[in-house]
């Protein structure tokens, strides 16, 4: 930032410098050095991220399916998509998942952070325990969750039945409960990560602000509502962007626990891309779905970014 500003505010000197041949040579050489440093990363990004993204856009306009050569079909895939109940099902499942998991995870992370900001014996252990799910493999730990929820031999199913919550065919085969179950695991997985970000935010709030509010007679809830929460809005923004984007891409625990079922009740967009692309091998159609996901994610992050620019807090 500062370098940009100095470059803008100092055009006379820069112009003078530019007449200086050896210096120009030096800056030229510097630019070459910079591009050399960037080359490996840019090559990889160009070949394995950027190019495939563009290629996906092209494939989405063809009927390519790995066996048959790509044939141009124009917008047929998108027309089919918007009339396809499986797509709308996956779309609304994804929206449902994100609309529940994002706020619940953030709210819980905030509550846990405020709770764990207090001093008490064993605090470090509790923090580590809450953070641990974030670093273990969701695909692997979901096997344990599926087992815990097994209707016959699962411990959690048994505990739930002891308190009167019984699902005969098991939570994961129950069209009503399968989605809440995979949502629950999604929240469980990420809440510790956002909690850590909130904890850092809490620790950066100057203590005298709370002290001043206390002297003014604000109670604990008022101090939280009017001092803590506004000062955490940078963290809230960061966390909500990350949580939203992550929940729109939900896949791992769904693949392991329900495989999109029962009756496609937990099939999200990424699950649908996987099914159409890699099980039905409909590459063109799968690419079209993935582009819809891309645009969806991009729009949402842009909206959130624009919103955030207006309410950044500095202190």
């Amino acid at each position: 930032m500062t370098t940009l500003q100095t470059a803008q505010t100092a055009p006379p000197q820069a112009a003078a410098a530019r007449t200086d041949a050896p210096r120009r040579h030096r800056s030229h050489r510097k630019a070459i050095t910079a591009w050399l440093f960037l080359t490996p990363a840019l090559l990889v990004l160009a070949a394995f991220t950027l190019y495939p993204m563009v290629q996906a856009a092209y494939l989405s306009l063809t009927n390519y399916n790995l066996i048959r050569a790509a044939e141009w079909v124009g917008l047929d895939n998108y027309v089919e998509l918007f009339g396809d109940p499986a797509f709308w099902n996956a779309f609304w499942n994804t929206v449902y998942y994100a609309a529940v998991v994002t706020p619940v995870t953030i709210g819980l992370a905030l509550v846990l952070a405020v709770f764990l900001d207090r001093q008490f014996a064993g605090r470090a252990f509790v923090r580590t325990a809450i953070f641990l799910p974030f670093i273990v493999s969701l695909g692997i730990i979901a096997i344990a969750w599926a087992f815990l929820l097994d209707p016959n031999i699962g411990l959690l199913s048994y505990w739930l039945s002891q308190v009167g919550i019984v699902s005969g065919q098991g939570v994961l085969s129950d069209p009503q409960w399968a989605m809440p179950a995979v949502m629950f695991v999604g929240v469980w997985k990420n809440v510790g990560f956002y909690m850590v970000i909130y904890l850092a935010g809490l620790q950066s709030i100057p203590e005298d602000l709370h002290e001043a509010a206390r002297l003014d007679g604000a109670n604990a809830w008022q101090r939280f509502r009017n001092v803590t929460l506004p000062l955490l809005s940078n963290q809230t923004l960061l966390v909500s962007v990350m949580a939203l984007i992550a929940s729109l891409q939900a896949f791992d625990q769904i693949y392991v626990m329900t495989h999109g079922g029962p009756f496609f009740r937990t099939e999200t967009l990424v699950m649908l891309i996987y099914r159409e692309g890699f099980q039905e091998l409909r590459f063109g159609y799968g690419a079209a779905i993935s582009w819809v996901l891309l645009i969806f994610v991009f729009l949402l992050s842009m909206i959130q970014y624009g919103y955030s620019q207006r309410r950044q807090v500095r202190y």
Partner: protein
Amino acid sequence: MTTTVESTAVDRPAASARRRTGPSYLNTHAAWKWLTAIAGIVIALAMLLPIIWMAFTAFKPESDIVAFPPTLWPRELTFEHFVDVWSRIPFARLYLNTIIFAGSVTLISLLFDSMAAYALARLEFSGRGVVLVLILVLLMLPFQVTLIPLYDMLNSIGLTNTLPGMIIPRMTNAFGIFFLRQFFLSLPKDLEEAARMDGASEWRIYWGVIMPLAKPALLTLGLFHFQYNWNDLLWPLIMSADVESATLPAGLALFMGQHVVEYGLLMAGSLLALLPVIAFFLLIQRSFVAGIATTGLK
């Protein structure tokens, strides 16, 4: 720091006045502390439930696993699952695949990310803004959109079902570049200016000055890359047609899907699969948590 120290010093008379209000205050205060600690432990155990369940079940004999009612604590201990897992699943193969995949992606990506980050944070050149915007955009877009063309591309050159095919597209990472750039920007400039005065090349400055200073950030990002790839399910699942060429999460998921679920075996395998990441994390926990806490907040 100083402000907090000062404010507590100023507060002391007030605090001691509060403390003088009598033993009942002290009692409720202590009771609160105990309640908080107990609530904390309960939350911690609830969060750890699947891991605890996994660990205990891995030591239960099959008869205990299917017994009703299920119990957390094993009624009998056995090591058979830890023996069987190596023969029933190509577990050693999966393990080796995962180590090679996650290990090489981590090392190569740390190198490429940090080189790009160095150029973006420390070198002036025209086009820098464009590159930065590109990286931010790539950071925002969901990678799933690349899966089909990437698979197609790697398939056409015979790299599907191979480790290089899995590794090569992950040799750098937009998030890693951005993360390290932010860190490099926060480093003081005087050391590298001194080195530059002495005529050190940019490579020397990058490798000899910046990289040693960036150790905590590199460790944090290293764990990020390592756990992300060690844990990843979708990419290895797509890239491997069978259990043999998969990594642990994909291999275990494939095994779970193909067989009548043998939970004892799966839990033993899962436990072994989680251990390296947990160990790595506990080892560098302090700098890792400090690192993510400040990510993107500058």
